[in-house]
């Protein structure tokens, strides 16, 4: 068998960490041809998530962790592309959670759908709870004036928090700082 490589493939020679392609030294990362800035997931968070799933005495080698992270990014890429397709088919312009769930189903991750959906519903409930006034659940019924007033109120609250209550915010009504207990009337 002829050992000479076919003319169209570049000669690859490996010396230390650099790979020479056609005698041009390239860093291993360049070869993969990544043109876009690659966002990855934060290592620390990922490490914690991984470890939480295992018994405490099981260790994960660093290269294994890195590989899991890469796999996760690839997973997001895959589901994103599929969600995009689903979204296109429905002729919508924004990728919504429903599209993602359908994508998961289509790609064989149907087992995840139930849990993911439950978590999504839970999140929706939690966000309504954490908003103090709960008025946002009726956001569609608010007029613009009401929404503006609500916004102003929240800004004022935030300002008051920032100032630590030391300076009086611009309010026409100079109320005394802090609640005062009702003064008992003295009947002498």
């Amino acid at each position: 068998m002829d050992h000479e490589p076919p003319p169209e493939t570049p000669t690859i020679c490996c010396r230390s960490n650099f790979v020479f392609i056609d005698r041009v030294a390239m860093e291993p990362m360049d070869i993969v041809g990544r043109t876009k800035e690659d966002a990855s997931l934060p290592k620390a968070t990922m490490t914690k998530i991984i470890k939480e799933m295992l018994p405490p005495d099981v260790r994960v080698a660093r290269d294994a962790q890195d590989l899991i992270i890469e796999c996760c990014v690839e997973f997001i890429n895959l589901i994103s592309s599929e969600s995009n397709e689903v979204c296109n088919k429905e002729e919508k312009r924004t990728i919504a959670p429903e599209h993602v769930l359908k994508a998961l189903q289509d790609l064989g991750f149907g087992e995840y759908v139930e849990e993911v959906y439950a978590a999504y519903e839970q999140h929706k409930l939690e966000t309504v709870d954490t908003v103090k006034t709960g008025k946002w659940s009726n956001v569609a019924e608010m007029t613009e004036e009401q929404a503006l007033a609500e916004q102003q109120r929240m800004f004022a609250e935030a300002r008051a928090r920032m100032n630590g209550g030391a300076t009086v915010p611009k309010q026409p009504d100079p109320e005394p700082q802090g609640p005062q207990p009702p003064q008992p009337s003295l009947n002498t």
Partner: protein
Amino acid sequence: MRHPGAYSGLLAGGLSGKTGPHSLPLARIKKIMKNSSDEVKMISGEAPIVFSKACELFIEELTKRAWMVTLKAKRRTIHKEDVAFAVINTDIFDFLVNLVTENSSKSEEPQPVMKA
């Protein structure tokens, strides 16, 4: 310092605004989604949340499968090869096969692929 307020929980990412179970940052997920394709449209605010949970489940499955490989080999440390093995042996992880074999070939001298 006082409680950061209602919205910081959302911005910090994750399904629970509390510092309980760790969750992936939504902004980062969104960035990866946008990188995945040139044609990606607008992404609803809630989509990354769904992704976050899906990723956790994915990580769980991959990690546990890799760990089973480690257990069989009677080791207590999960190595890269265990992860690769788990990927290769799981149908739905087919999309990762190239990724794990590409990784394992980096550590060896690359062999020119010759098709007879």
